[in-house]
């Protein structure tokens, strides 16, 4: 079965209806402003495991929702 995301407005829908949105995270330990800018522009957490992320329901209600997804299995938790 294809992967599904449950939209609070539209119910469970195929993942292809959604656009992925990333939540940028710059580590607190970075204090130098240039280093923070570089990190925000390019560096990625790219988590291997459960990740909190945003999805835009492009083919549905056209609203953003927040999910927790395991990137090792693609399943929404």
């Amino acid at each position, binding site marked *: 079965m294809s992967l599904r995301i449950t939209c609070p407005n539209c119910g469970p829908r195929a993942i292809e209806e959604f656009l992925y949105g990333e939540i940028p995270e710059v580590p607190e330990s970075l204090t130098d402003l240039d280093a923070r800018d570089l990190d925000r522009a390019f*560096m990625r957490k790219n988590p291997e495991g459960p990740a909190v*992320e945003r999805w835009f329901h492009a083919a549905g209600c056209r609203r953003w929702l927040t999910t927790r997804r395991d990137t090792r299995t693609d399943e929404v938790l």
Partner: protein
Amino acid sequence: MNEFVERTIKFTWQKPKSSYDVVIVGGGGHGLATAYYLATRHGITNVAVLERNYIGSGNSGRNTTIIRSNYGIPESVKFYQRSVDLYAGLEQETGVWVMHRQKGLLWMAHTEAGVRAERARAEVNTAFGAKTEYVTPAQIREICPQIDLRGGGVWPVMGASYHAEGASARHDRVVWAFAEGAMKQGVHIHQKTAVTGLIKSGDRITGVETAAGSISAGAVVSAVGGHVTTLASMAGLRLPIRTHRLQAFVTNHYAQEFKPIVASANLLFYVSQTARGEMLLGAEIDRQPSYSYRSGHHFLQSCAFRALTLFPFMRDLRILRQWTGVCDMSPDYSPIMGLTGIDGFFITTGWGTWGFKAIPAGGEQMAELIATGKTPPLIAPFSLARFGQDRTLADRGSAGTH
């Protein structure tokens, strides 16, 4: 076919030692090629390659085996041309038949903008040593008679760039050729040996932790595909990498010859024929980051639909099997090779959807860097530091898969 066909590849497995001059993490094409060139070109044979599964089990065994150098920027054209040249001589050098075959590659233009882009590609390629020319629809039909030049009435073929040196090789055999060649020189390859941590001494990386114990090393090289962010984070290093799935499929046997490799940036698919006669198709990466090897029906449906636009004959073929690899995508669609800013830790990553074609050149150049301590000019532009220096190598249009 030739004198290599009948020869059996022989591996010599060794017991792990507690210390090596160089430890390479990742037993795919890039890791094994780096070990091979360290041993054969620089005489550094006290080397171990650690692979958590079996060699070539990651993206080296999951790609679509295309070799080409028709990139859009000078740095990439020069680097990939080196790889095309090394691939062409690989059978002679290693004595292993890797089923290398020059096929020619057509990169289709369906719009006025596409025509300009392919003309520009031909110019840049010619200027920096790759053999690419612009061809008209009539010439395309001669190279590839199966094509529907009307593009189903939706994507008419207006021209293409033809890259004569476009080739393919059997991916497993490339992995085995480098593994056997390295082992002959005394390199150790340890399968089923996952790296669980990196050993730090001050600011320097001095070894790796595995389930079987720790191994100290003069230099640690990450040649990991798919999970590089996890490995780099053990060294406290953040990377500009996102990992995405890339899917591909093959059809059953097509009885005619389909000579060239065909790619279309507008239609977002590429196709070639395998040595067994199957049609091999791939498309773009999945949008969301993922480490899963799951394949999906949505990809099959959309990729097959686009392929039929140019190749109606495929209507009669059936899909035999599909599979997935996980690709480390860099923000500028160019690889990242070289120093990391951490002593004793080297990296070759960001191989996204273009890693297979770069195996020999990537290995050769990384070996030179590790042996001499100096970044060779060919890969100097691909450093990790480029992102902080406003020297990104944006070449999305040549990735072919996005």
